[in-house]
């Protein structure tokens, strides 16, 4: 019985690991493909925007903090705070920058020469 359980756990582990590695490799390739097309002038908002995305660790942080207990809860709570700084700060600061880049109205284009 125990051996059977171990065996099924092992195969389950293998397929789970394989799936995770597959997702990882394909996402990396997708990322390389998409990011290569970002123009140099948007590289700073790209970095702050990806900061916000790396705040996805919030998922793990919420699960850890929610499970409670002094040790896990405390570490989870600090993790929630750190990840939330990334999420909230990252999206807000990126928006602030992108507003400057494209959001405002252009006053005429090219050479604006008011004097005739």
């Amino acid at each position, binding site marked *: 019985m125990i051996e059977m359980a171990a065996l099924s756990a092992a195969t389950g582990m293998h397929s789970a690991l394989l799936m995770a590695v597959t997702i990882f490799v394909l996402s990396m390739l997708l990322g390389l493909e998409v990011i290569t097309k970002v123009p140099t002038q948007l590289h700073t908002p790209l970095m702050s925007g990806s900061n916000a995305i790396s705040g996805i660790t919030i998922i793990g942080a919420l699960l850890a903090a929610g499970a409670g207990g002094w040790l896990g809860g405390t570490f*989870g709570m600090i993790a929630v705070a750190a990840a939330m700084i990334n999420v909230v700060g990252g999206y807000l600061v990126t928006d602030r920058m992108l507003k400057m880049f494209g959001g405002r109205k252009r006053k005429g284009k090219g050479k604006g020469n008011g004097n005739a």
Partner: protein
Amino acid sequence: MPDWAIPIAYLVAAVLFVVALKRMSSPKTARLGNLLGAVGMAIAIVFTLLTRERDPLTGAAGTFIRDGGWAFILIGAVVGSAVGAFLALSVKMTGMPQMVAMFNGFGGLASGLVVFAEIWRRPAMAFDAAAFGGSLPGEVYYLVIAVALSTLIGWVTFTGSLIAFAKLQEFVVSGRPFTFPMQRLANFGLLGLTVVLIVLWAAFPAQRWLVIPIALLAAAAGVLFTIPIGGADMPVVISLLNSYSGLAACATGFVLQNPGLIIAGSLVGSSGIVLTRIMCVGMNRSLANVLFGAVGGVVAGGGDGEVKRHTSWTPQDAAIALNNASFVVIVPGYGMAVAQAQHAVKDLANLLEQRGVEVKFGIHEVAGRMPGHMNVLLAEAEVPYEKLMDRHETNNELDRADCVIVLGANDVVNPVARKDVASPIKGMPILDVDKAGTVMVIKRSLNPGFAGVDNELFYMDNTAMVFGDGKKTIQAITEAMKAS
């Protein structure tokens, strides 16, 4: 709510992240993209909070939040959101590199802490071979290795980013790299020791305390690897740490077996890799050279004794030259950020344009302290992005430029990089400003740039030095032009 709702929500979030990054390909679409990314994150957070787990005894499903979990979540979320919002709304555009460095660090810290909590959350029995009839299931080894890697990357990212932040904020002297004897040996020894501990833990998963020395060694490695790196190499370091913060989240995804984390983490990881590569190419240096080369230690001092002649102009001379120009290219560098001269530059550009002069900006990818640093500053000063040219565009246009204003840039315009002589910047792709009619360099002195290489541009026949503070000098030139 059905069990499959949560994985679907993570998938939707991941798709929105990809859409957000895709829309970064143009300034016109980027802002809405960013908003969509934020919506994706909100979906991920809300559905995570709805996660239910089954009681192993009764089989009844209930929320995963227990034992005061709500309090921990609420306090963390409120504090984190407040701090994040405050930082994001108060930071000046010139302080953006520090800000990004700090955010990278928090990403790494969060991942490091999550896996730490995760490994201690499990009962000791889960790591006890006896409980499994003598041999642990493979799952445990997988878990331990994933936790170890996540800890390693997370803590390196955290402390490395803190050092990068301190350097950018100039809490520590950032101009010259900090080196000590046997530095490389110490760094690699540290890394080797960490790997040994990880292998050891993988061999004896029950020894969970090993995660603590692994975290401490990783934290030390982050400090030691970042400390020797000089200021102008910061664009590479920030990009690399950006990548690490994503990979840390990714490794956490392996620990939690959560595809949402793996996808989002890899996107950030690959983004950082792309930026790191662009920065390295922009300096014609390998990543290894940036990390271990400690370039910038040599200060040329008095030079080789040969007295070279340079031309020195007053702001009035500069104004005359600009009055006669029909196409002006402005090349900003870190000096513009230090002097906070972006608004003064915009005023000068406006005046020139009012007089029918075409003005464009030539931006080298490694100018400043982070990728895109100059672009953000000029965008803040409301310079339309159509006027900003990257290195290739700039070099195509420089031939027809009557006048180039180099403001606080140095190594990226040094013609010595094109020559076949030994120098730290040999082969670095530069902006060929010397091909323009006249080059005026606004700078405090003739001192060499970060790489410690004397700039041949300063002594060329078509170059004139306008000495002084970047902002004040630009303002003086603008005034002189208005007066004429």
